[in-house]
């Protein structure tokens, strides 16, 4: 687009990030008691996770997103009345309908002349949320987008399925994506990826209309590897997901560098979806990124799905590591299968 174009794109930037965790803690000791062949020390060594937070029975993703948004507003960066679009990324909505983001408009006291919608994506969702938010801003359709990510996979996980119960934790994040006033903050370029043929590899099969929940789908069975689950529960084919991740994440990283014309040394931080320690270790080797450029946050919260990247961003902000001009690559990947990456300058 050149200066003669009738429309000018408005740059968007990440203005603030806040996070929220439920109170209940699930420790490795508790899990080791349920899964005798895995000690608490082995769970920590393999997953890198000491404990996860679990939503209460009556606590939803909408509640967690609400609390994260309150923390964002409490920081003083914006008030509910400033928000002109709400995007909530979740796979555990409060209801089938209405849209949880609409309920949050009311709960948060946001204006009624704004847009609100939910996005159904998992671990790639934060980057997709950023792309939608910055697209709305670029096109002049919004100026302050409240991007909420919240999930409660614990509600889908069978208590006796160690393959996923050890990894996932509940949590939420609120990110304010705002039009920038020429301060150098940018979001993009983006690269995307989708492979629905791997949909079966990370799935909660029932609860929609392809396979409605019923007594039969709730029948639990052992999968032969000592994990018990039903068709109503979350299932992950860890091997297939690992293969997909090792193939697509390095490719996404290279595509982002190509598209942005940047070299690896131009990037200050590579923030990957915080799946777990062994996956990040494998990806770090493939990307050849040093420890100090690959921040991590899973030890005390596990894999919080679409909120893992903003949890890392929140840590970097808190530690004063995101000074003006700091450049990051963000890459989310997971259920769908779906993946996306973005270059972000703060």
């Amino acid at each position, binding site marked *: 687009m050149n200066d003669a174009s009738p429309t000018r794109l408005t740059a968007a930037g990440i203005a603030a990030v806040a996070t929220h965790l439920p109170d209940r803690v699930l420790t490795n000791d508790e899990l080791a008691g349920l899964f005798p062949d895995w000690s608490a020390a082995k769970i920590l060594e393999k997953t890198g996770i000491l404990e996860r937070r679990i939503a209460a029975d009556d606590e939803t993703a909408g509640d967690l997103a609400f609390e994260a948004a309150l923390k964002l507003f409490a920081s003083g960066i914006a008030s509910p009345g400033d928000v002109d679009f709400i995007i909530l990324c979740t796979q555990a909505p409060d209801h089938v309908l209405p849209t949880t983001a609409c309920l949050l408009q009311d709960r948060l006291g946001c204006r009624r002349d704004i847009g609100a919608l939910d996005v159904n994506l998992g671990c790639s969702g934060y980057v997709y949320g950023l792309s939608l938010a910055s697209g709305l801003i670029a096109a002049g359709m919004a100026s302050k987008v409240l991007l909420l990510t919240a999930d409660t996979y614990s509600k889908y996980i069978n208590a006796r399925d160690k393959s996923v119960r050890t990894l996932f934790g509940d949590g939420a994040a609120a990110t304010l994506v705002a039009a920038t006033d020429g301060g150098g903050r940018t979001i993009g370029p983006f690269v995307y990826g989708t492979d629905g043929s791997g949909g079966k590899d990370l799935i909660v099969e029932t609860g929609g209309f392809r396979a409605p929940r019923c007594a039969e789908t709730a029948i639990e069975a052992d999968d032969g590897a000592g994990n018990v689950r039903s068709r109503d529960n979350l299932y992950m084919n860890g091997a297939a997901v690992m*293969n997909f991740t090792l193939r697509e994440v390095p490719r996404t990283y290279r595509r982002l560098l190509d598209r942005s014309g940047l070299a690896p040394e131009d990037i200050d931080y590579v923030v990957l979806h915080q799946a777990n320690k062994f996956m990040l270790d494998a990806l770090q080797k493939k990307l050849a990124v040093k420890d100090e450029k690959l921040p991590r946050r899973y030890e005390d919260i596990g894999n919080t799905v679409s909120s893992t990247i903003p949890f890392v961003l929140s840590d970097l902000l808190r530690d004063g590591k995101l000074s003006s001009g700091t450049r990051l690559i963000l890459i989310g990947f997971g259920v769908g299968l779906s993946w996306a990456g973005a270059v972000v300058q703060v």
Partner: protein
Amino acid sequence: MSEFYQGMAEIFEVEESEMGPDFPLDEGWDSLAVVSTIALIDEVYDRTVSATRLQECKTVGDIEKLAQE
């Protein structure tokens, strides 16, 4: 001992002297071990192996053959 067998010894948490082509894939060959093996093969041989074919392997030697195909 090769990098592959060193890695497999780590995955099964046994001494390197105990690890070899005849090492059986029964006790400890759980989902985490499978995933770790995929990462190891990627690192050592720079290639991916199908999860289904990996699960058909009976010994560590079978995995080595699969990785070198």
